[in-house]
């Protein structure tokens, strides 16, 4: 049998020599010629253009040199604005329901049946509160952001974004389709990493995977929005505060895009050197989105899936938070030791030990960073009048409460800004790390993709803190 195959292979080798090198081109030409003949036989065109004039007109504007980028910026701002404004009210309602109504009921029920304090603490103060907080904070913005994003996607806008950004990407030595995977990353980095499969060249695909983390993901938008509302919104007159906080959040998102380009450029000049590959991107016709169907599928496919993931990680994290704040070593609790141990390094970065510990606890999911920070802050500062005591993730009925706690924890405008920066530039969440490993099948690149952003985050926050303090004195 193997001998027969050998005969085929040697014949094909001989023939390959005789037909010359341009076989591939000849074959493609043959296919094109056949396709043209068949199409000419059965297709009659009454119009001349492939696109309807309206499509062409829209494309002329949204991909134009002058208007392309401002329109992209406005779209992003519009989606964010709707998300921020729209999410406020349902968030407050969910908070009231889950934290102020159901939580006390559960607590009362637990004490009525004489549940031991540690069981009650672990499950209600730890697991339940963390989960409830994540739902209240995450569900509304996701339920708005995802459908809006999906509507833009269905309309056909994403390939235009890729078209606009192609030049920039090829200038930094990356693939133009990275614009698409970057956009997907704004929803979820794990999804963005999977989407890089559309990039043919392994080199450019690795660049797209490693830099996807700079797309501010859905788990981080709420953190940005909350901190910007409290600290950035507060430094301008109140009628401007909404605008200022949205501006700050967009600024961070833009910084992320800048770092995507910057690190792509560095990678393609150093460890991932190579040619930029060319590609064809078909601009699909604009299709009126099927509104209700899109809303439905994006709620089911994306929002609920991502929310479920958040809950899945929040529940055990809630237990961990409760445990580290209740396990005593000597006369201090474990969490306090950890926080004080990291305070010095935190100060150098313009952050603090609480934030660093929160980021360690929150490696599984960025969504739980803020609840963790608040809980730990209450514990170390011993602020009275908030929450239920040690290790309890408490209710936040108003943004003012949150602000009071953070200020009591020694937060300044610098802490807020650096937290926003660090939230953008740190390691990917565990799901994304796992996805990167599955896609690259390389431990080395997974480690690079996980560690590089943390180091970069340390450097940037350190520089900002030093310059800030220099100027403040």
């Amino acid at each position: 049998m193997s001998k027969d195959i050998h005969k085929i292979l040697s014949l094909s080798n001989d023939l390959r020599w005789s037909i010359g090198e341009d076989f591939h081109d000849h074959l493609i030409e043959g296919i094109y010629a056949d396709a043209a003949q068949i199409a000419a036989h059965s297709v009659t065109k009454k119009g001349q253009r492939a696109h309807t004039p309206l499509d062409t007109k829209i494309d002329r504007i949204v991909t134009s040199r002058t208007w392309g980028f401002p329109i992209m910026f406005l779209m992003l701002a519009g989606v964010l604005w709707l998300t921020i404004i729209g999410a406020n009210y349902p968030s407050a309602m969910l908070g009231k329901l889950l934290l102020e109504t159901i939580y006390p009921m559960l607590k009362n029920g637990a004490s009525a049946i004489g549940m031991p304090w540690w069981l009650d603490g672990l499950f209600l103060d730890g697991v339940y509160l963390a989960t409830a907080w994540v739902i209240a904070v995450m569900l509304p913005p996701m339920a708005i952001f995802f459908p809006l994003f999906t509507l833009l996607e269905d309309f056909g806008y994403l390939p235009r974004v890729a078209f606009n950004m192609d030049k920039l990407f090829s200038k930094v030595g990356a693939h133009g389709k990275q614009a698409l995977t970057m956009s997907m990353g704004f929803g979820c980095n794990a999804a963005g990493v999977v989407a890089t499969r559309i990039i043919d060249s392994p080199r450019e695909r690795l660049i797209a995977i490693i830099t996807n983390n700079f797309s501010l993901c859905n788990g981080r938008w709420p953190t940005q929005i909350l901190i910007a509302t409290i600290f950035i919104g507060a430094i301008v007159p109140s009628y401007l505060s909404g605008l200022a906080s949205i501006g700050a959040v967009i600024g961070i998102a833009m910084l992320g895009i800048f770092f995507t380009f910057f690190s792509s450029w560095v990678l393609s000049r150093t460890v991932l050197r190579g040619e930029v590959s060319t590609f064809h991107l078909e601009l699909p016709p604009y299709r009126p989105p099927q509104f209700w169907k899109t809303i439905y599928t994006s709620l089911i496919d994306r929002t609920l899936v991502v929310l479920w993931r958040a809950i899945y990680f929040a529940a055990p994290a809630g237990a961990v938070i409760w445990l580290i704040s209740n396990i005593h070593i000597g006369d201090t609790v474990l969490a306090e030791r950890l926080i004080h141990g990291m305070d010095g390094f935190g100060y150098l970065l313009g952050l603090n030990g609480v934030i660093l510990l929160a980021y360690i606890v929150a490696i599984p999911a960025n969504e739980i960073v803020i609840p963790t920070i608040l809980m730990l802050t209450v514990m170390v500062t011993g602020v009275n009048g908030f929450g239920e005591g040690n290790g309890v993730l408490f209710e936040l009925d108003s943004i003012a409460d949150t602000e009071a706690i953070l200020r009591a924890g020694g937060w300044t405008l610098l802490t807020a800004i650096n937290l926003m920066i660090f939230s953008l530039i740190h390691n990917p969440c565990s799901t994304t790390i796992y996805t990167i490993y599955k896609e690259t099948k390389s431990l080395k690149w997974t480690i690079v993709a996980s560690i590089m952003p943390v180091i970069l985050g340390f450097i940037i926050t350190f520089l900002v803190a030093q310059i800030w303090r220099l100027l403040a004195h």
Partner: protein
Amino acid sequence: MNKIELPKSECASCPHYSTEGLKKLGVDTHGVDFVVALAGNPNTGKSTVFNALTGLKQHTGNWPGKTVARAEGAFSFADKKYKIVDLPGTYSLLSTSIDEEVARDFILFGKPDVTIIVVDASRLERNLNLVLQILEITDHAVLCLNLMDEAKRNKVEIDTRKLAKDLGIPVVPTIARDQKGIPELLQAVHDVATGKIKCKPHRIKNINPKIEQAISKLTKEIKSQFPDLPNSRWIAFRLLEGDETIINALKNGTLT
């Protein structure tokens, strides 16, 4: 949105005409009779066709490259159970990106009973490049001429009879997002799967005589050793290009 009338056939008045025989089985792919692959250029509505057949709600998006892995689902029609695999959209099967490999390997090694090739009716010529490549690999295919509404909007008319004759496979016009043409598509898939329709797929003709000579020589050799191979000519193409995957597949017998 404009309502577009698809070319009415005799079938429309026939009592068997409906999706009534269609049972959407979601992801339950146990004990299937036939395997159907769904291939086509990016952004032609493969996932929409997939959802229409399986009742699944796979996310569809208006950008090329949305489906990067393959998705599977099932449906049953006329007492037969079908598994359907949604392949990534590709422009060709000749290069080596991951999405093209996924699509090609499934059609080549997965040996689906029927391959539905979904094309954008308003851009038929460009889409045909992939169609012709698929027809070199498999004998059992149905052309789903999708997005007929957009073709109409662009004033493109297609003679489906001539097209079917030229390609040698059934051609079904559809507007998948409105479920139009799905019954006819099911019937065509069923007929090809059960052998009621025999396809005589078009084989690439416009090839330089010198190369054609080499190809037929090699094809003859392959055929003499693997008489049952349906795509010996395509294997010859790949061998002449020095495609390692195919050489290895030939060596370890995964092709037959």
